[in-house]
């Protein structure tokens, strides 16, 4: 197992390099001169030169690339051009909120999606299958900001069960958790669609496998046949989907943070886009790149956890 983890860690490195390079390229394909864009037409040549120098744009491209990589490797994300503070500091203050939202969202999505998918497969064609089908259809259809707005209207405005602002300081745990409910539910609800759907089809496949018959022939109780023998196998495609869903989840968390007015990477990136804060944008993309690579790694490790054929050779 330890070797497996180590191997996956090493294999994540090329991906990390590739995604970081993508960030570099994306930020450099800005049409025109960023310095000109930032300072505007009235800027003096002197100011432009100074800004280009500050942004490291006055050296050859490959040099910029090396400097960028070196800086990232040292954990240096640069200085925000607009706020004049280190990007990492800005990110660090809001990152816990985004991570909290994302993890609770995934947790809720799996917590609701797995049982729904299992029960739908078990009672195929029954009412719970219909519920699962419609839940999936709705979850796949709802853009995150629309489900967020409707939840806000229903559960915070019409029925004032939850605060309108989806955040309260960590120092006040009860209020903090209450404020987290709606945003996390919003992410979780959309994720339920994906999880329930794959769980259902995975369960239908594994329930018709020979080893299920073997388990029943041993006298294993029906409950364990479903939740141990069948579900353990159905988890393999679920891991795939949760991994793939991560990209959508990040986008949805940005929208959710805006709707519920929560601090987080989402509001930071929208602010940076509006301010044309290129260093901040680049820093945020590096963070997203790290998150993506981390999620891929977590998916790989999860595969190993649920499928011994990958872990043990």
């Amino acid at each position, binding site marked *: 197992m330890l070797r497996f983890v180590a191997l996956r860690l090493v294999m994540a490195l090329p*991906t990390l390099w*590739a*995604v970081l*390079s*993508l960030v570099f390229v*994306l*930020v450099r*394909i*800005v*049409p025109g001169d960023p310095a000109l864009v930032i300072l505007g037409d009235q800027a003096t040549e002197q100011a432009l030169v100074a800004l280009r120098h500050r942004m490291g744009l006055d050296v050859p491209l490959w040099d910029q690339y090396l400097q960028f990589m070196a800086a990232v490797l040292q954990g240096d994300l640069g200085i925000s051009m607009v706020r004049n503070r280190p990007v990492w500091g800005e990110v660090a203050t809001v990152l816990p909120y985004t991570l909290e939202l994302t993890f609770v969202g995934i947790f809720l999505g799996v917590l609701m999606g797995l049982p729904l998918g299992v029960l739908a497969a078990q009672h*195929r*064609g029954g009412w719970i299958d219909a519920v699962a089908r419609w839940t999936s*259809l*709705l979850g*796949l*259809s*709802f*853009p*995150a*900001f*629309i489900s967020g*707005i*409707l939840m*806000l*209207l229903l559960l915070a*405005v019409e029925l004032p069960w939850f605060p*309108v602002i989806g955040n309260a300081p960590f120092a006040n745990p009860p209020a903090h958790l209450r404020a987290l409910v709606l945003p996390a539910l919003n992410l979780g609800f959309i994720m339920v669609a994906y999880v329930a759907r794959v769980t259902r*089809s995975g369960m239908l496949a594994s329930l*018709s496998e020979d080893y299920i018959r073997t388990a029943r022939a041993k006298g294993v109780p029906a409950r364990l046949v479903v939740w141990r023998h069948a579900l353990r196998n159905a988890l393999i495609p679920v891991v795939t989907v949760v991994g793939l869903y*991560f*990209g*959508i989840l*990040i*986008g*949805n968390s*940005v*929208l959710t943070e*805006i*709707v519920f007015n929560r601090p987080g990477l989402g509001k930071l*990136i*929208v602010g940076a*886009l*509006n301010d*044309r804060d290129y260093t901040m*944008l680049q820093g945020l*993309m590096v963070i*997203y*790149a790290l998150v*993506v*690579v981390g999620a*891929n790694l977590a998916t790989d490790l999860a595969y190993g956890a649920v499928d011994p054929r990958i872990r043990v050779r």
Partner: protein
Amino acid sequence: MAVGAIGAPKGIAGRALGNRSLMAGVALLVFIILLAVLAPWISPYDPNDQDAIASLGAPNAQHWFGTDFFGRDVLSRVIWGARVSLFVGAVSTAISMLLGGSIGILSGYVGGRFDQGVMAVMDVLLSFPQLIMGLIIVALLGANLTDLILAIAITAVPPFARVARGPTLSLKERDFVEAGRALGFSNLRIMLVHILPNVLDDLIVMGSLWLATAIRTEASLSFIGLGLPPPTATWGSIIREGFENLLDAPWLAVFPSLAVLIVMLALNMIGDGLRDATDPKAAVS
């Protein structure tokens, strides 16, 4: 005993017709498309006519969906917004299909190192969150109609490239392609005449699925404030304006939200129906 092998196989067309969710989805989508196409004739008001007195009016007999901050009729804006939203979604999907399809076919056909390189780039692009990528590209390109469409299209190129490449790899080994090569046909001709028609089916199914994503991406970008500049009505931008007045005039956000939701539902129902109709395994029930 082959107990599992029970179930009458029907033709794909038969299953598609017998599939209620597919038909309902098509009906809903046709309805919305008709609304968009007929906007100049059926929308009760000009979507940009302002009426300061009617600012933030609740839904009533004159304004079924109410009015916005500038007193514009929300129903008319939603109907006109359908035009832009559907247009952006459809055109950007078509572009990603074209670009992604070409890249995929070329990559698969050429093969070797080139193929590996292209696919590695596609994988990296694919691994980056789609909405974040869209945000960055729009921010870099600017926010006019062409750039918006292009930005949304670019984010969807990698999945289309993957879909087109798969069948190309196996098709190029087949006899008719070999024969074409032996007859001295140009590579371009082989790709266009022999490979493209065989890949097209997969691309179209994929396209129908991505249309929903493209429309959603446009709405999301507009909602964030990176869509088309005002006063152009798109569903995302109407919702954004509604969101700013959410507590005073919830109808402003709710009605366009429902419009987006209906299109998403329709497209997903069509997608599910198509999948059930084309996948014999899913149809046995």
